[in-house]
């Protein structure tokens, strides 16, 4: 579980200026602002409602995965399987809806049951992860890497080498739909695009899936920051022995955390299916770096016990701004990987040398 930091690895004791401490706690906000200013100056159109919505729309997977990763990392673990659970969920959600389509339930019920079934099945990888980690004492790295392989294998077996397709139209509409449509001369319309003549401009505000993601993120921020469950998560990551002595049901909590991680990854997978109208096994393969990086940039320690949803979201936003900014500036996305790597290391170094003053 949580391995102790190596001797001498802790922040150096000594006097720290208030400024350094403040910077250590707030540099990510500053960085995000500077990043936005930089890209706004560099590319026209970056500072616009449209760009903001695109940024949030294409960022939802990383937002959800990084929160999943945050809970696991706060317990001192790691979840490598989230990316492939996402792929697995994107496939089975479509398959469930395909199977239910001939039953004649109608599209809304088919989509609803498909989503619910996927979320339930999506708990299984996390429950197995949690069981391996909490009860068999398998290191999280190994347990979740094994699950990565199993999810990859099972996904490929289900789709047999092609993409999963055949999503009901309603689901695709939700995936590309917006919360609010504003048209000049018409009353604003919620959730459904008004029928207008060609050429009439409809202002689309907040994609549906961003609304869903925002609600989920708020609930999780509450769960980690304000509930007993959240306190237990931090306690386990801080010192697992002390947590046990304090009567916290460590094994059950770990099971819950890994299950939640895979639940969130499944939700991200469903959202992926709705957005891209297809499911594939490696849909989330490249998101692992981003999701762990967001948590680490947000100031969480891999040794556990720290990290908040708010700061993780700032970390994820830093990555999302970087991604969109570079794309809009016409730079090949290759640069993004380099910069993410550099920022990742930089974030840890800053946390080491400018630790935030503890309350």
């Amino acid at each position, binding site marked *: 579980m949580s*391995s102790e*930091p*190596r*001797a*001498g*690895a*802790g922040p150096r004791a000594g006097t720290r200026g208030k400024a350094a401490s403040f910077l250590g706690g707030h540099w990510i906000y500053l960085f995000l602002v500077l990043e936005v200013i930089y890209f706004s100056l560099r590319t026209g159109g970056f500072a616009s409602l449209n760009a903001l919505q695109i940024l949030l729309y294409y960022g939802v997977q990383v937002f959800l995965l990084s929160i999943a990763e945050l809970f696991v990392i706060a317990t001192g673990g*790691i979840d*490598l399987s989230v990316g492939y659970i996402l792929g697995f969920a994107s496939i089975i959600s479509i398959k469930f809806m395909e199977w239910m389509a001939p039953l004649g339930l109608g599209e809304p019920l088919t989509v609803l049951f498909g989503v619910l079934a996927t979320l339930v099945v999506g708990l299984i990888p996390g429950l197995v992860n949690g069981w*391996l980690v909490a009860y*068999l*004492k*398998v*290191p999280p*790295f*190994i*347990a979740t*890497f*094994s*699950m*990565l*392989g*199993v999810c*990859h*294998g*099972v996904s*490929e*077996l289900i789709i047999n080498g092609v993409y999963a397709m055949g999503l009901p139209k309603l689901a695709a509409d939700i995936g590309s739909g917006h919360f609010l449509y504003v048209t000049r001369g018409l009353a604003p319309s919620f959730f459904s695009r008004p029928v207008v003549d060609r050429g009439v401009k409809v202002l689309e505000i907040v994609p549906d899936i961003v609304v869903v993601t925002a609600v989920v993120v708020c609930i999780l921020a509450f769960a980690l920051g304000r509930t007993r469950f959240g306190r237990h998560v931090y306690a386990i990551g801080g010192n697992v022995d002390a947590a046990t002595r304090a009567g916290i049901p460590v094994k059950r909590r770990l099971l819950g955390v890994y299950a939640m991680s895979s639940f969130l990854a499944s939700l991200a997978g469903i959202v992926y299916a709705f957005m891209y109208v297809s499911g594939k096994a*490696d849909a989330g*393969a*490249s998101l692992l*770096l981003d999701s*762990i*990086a967001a948590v*680490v940039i947000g100031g969480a320690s*891999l*040794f556990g016990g720290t990290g908040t949803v708010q700061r993780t979201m700032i970390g994820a936003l830093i990555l999302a701004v970087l991604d969109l900014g570079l794309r809009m500036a016409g730079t*090949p996305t*290759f*640069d*993004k*990987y*380099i*910069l*993410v*790597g*550099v920022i*990742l*290391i930089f974030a*840890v*170094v800053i946390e*080491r040398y400018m630790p935030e003053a503890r309350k």
Partner: protein
Amino acid sequence: MNGQSAAAGAAGGFLETRAGRALASNWAAFFLIAMFVIFSMTSGSFLSIANFQNVIHLQTLPFLLAAAETFVIITGGIDLSVGFVTGLASVCAARLIQLLLASGMPGAQAVSLSVAAVLVLSLLPGLVNGLVITKFKVPPFIATMGMWGIANGLALKVSNGFPMTGLPDRLPEIGNGYLLYVMPGQFVSFFAKPEGFANSRIRELIRLLPYSLPFILLVLAVLAFVLRRTRFGRHTYAIGGNVDAAIRSGISIDRHLILVYVLSSFLSGMGGIFNVFQTGIGNYTTFNAQYEFFAIAAVVIGGASLAGGKGRIWSSAVGVLVLAFLENGLAISGVQPFYRYIAVGVLLVVAVVIDKIFPDLR
């Protein structure tokens, strides 16, 4: 190998016996043999020299990466960057060869110069990893994950996102060459196919001992020697076993860790160069390749512990072979290759559970 561990007692009587412990400490090797038996029965063409040579030839890169990872994991660290450093070395070598050829340098010279240059360059990612880990106290997971991104981005930049072609045809001939070519009853030829040999009859030709075999055996033997018989190796185990005791016994931890990460990226770079010779093109590493994860899996299946202090080069090599023959055997028996991913997951958990039951093996 003596003493009764309480955990072993809980695992039942047989596991406490000498035979039981021998089985547990070499389970990967026994599993490998069992696979040979099973796959020989499920497929007629599994048990053949050609197939075995192919599997081992194709595993040259995984062998190198697993050896690299063995050193790092013994120190209690992890190196996630090996796969993308491999890709970076591969595309850098290809780019250099292209540039030197374009400048009019003869092929052999251009290739050897590029290989030497890339081997030196491949020390850099490890040096950065090591410095970041020791001087800035960044956890190895994060530091090498950062390098994961950096090496990947650089490789994509160098290659522009496409495999790099236009290298001399001699490269894959060397990379996929054999020491011995035998035509039963007609001729034996060393190092190359006989002149004028018709490609249409290539299937009758028996090819023995790919160059990659002596190469990888030599590299692994040297590394195994370094790990088991030299001070460098003893220090590696000492750091992983108990870092405080290692500090007290006067080992320069930082310097040693930097060297271990440099060795790791050097071996990855070597793997990248081999990749150029094997495929004849420069390849960046894709996310799907997951070289680093399979290398770590091989090391863990070979009996190393991610907590450090345990692991052996040859055991990791057995781990690589387990993964390789699993894939090959399943494919050759006509089973969906995807079961391999699932099997790897199960094997890893088995490895760790055995490690938990017998904490004092090795």
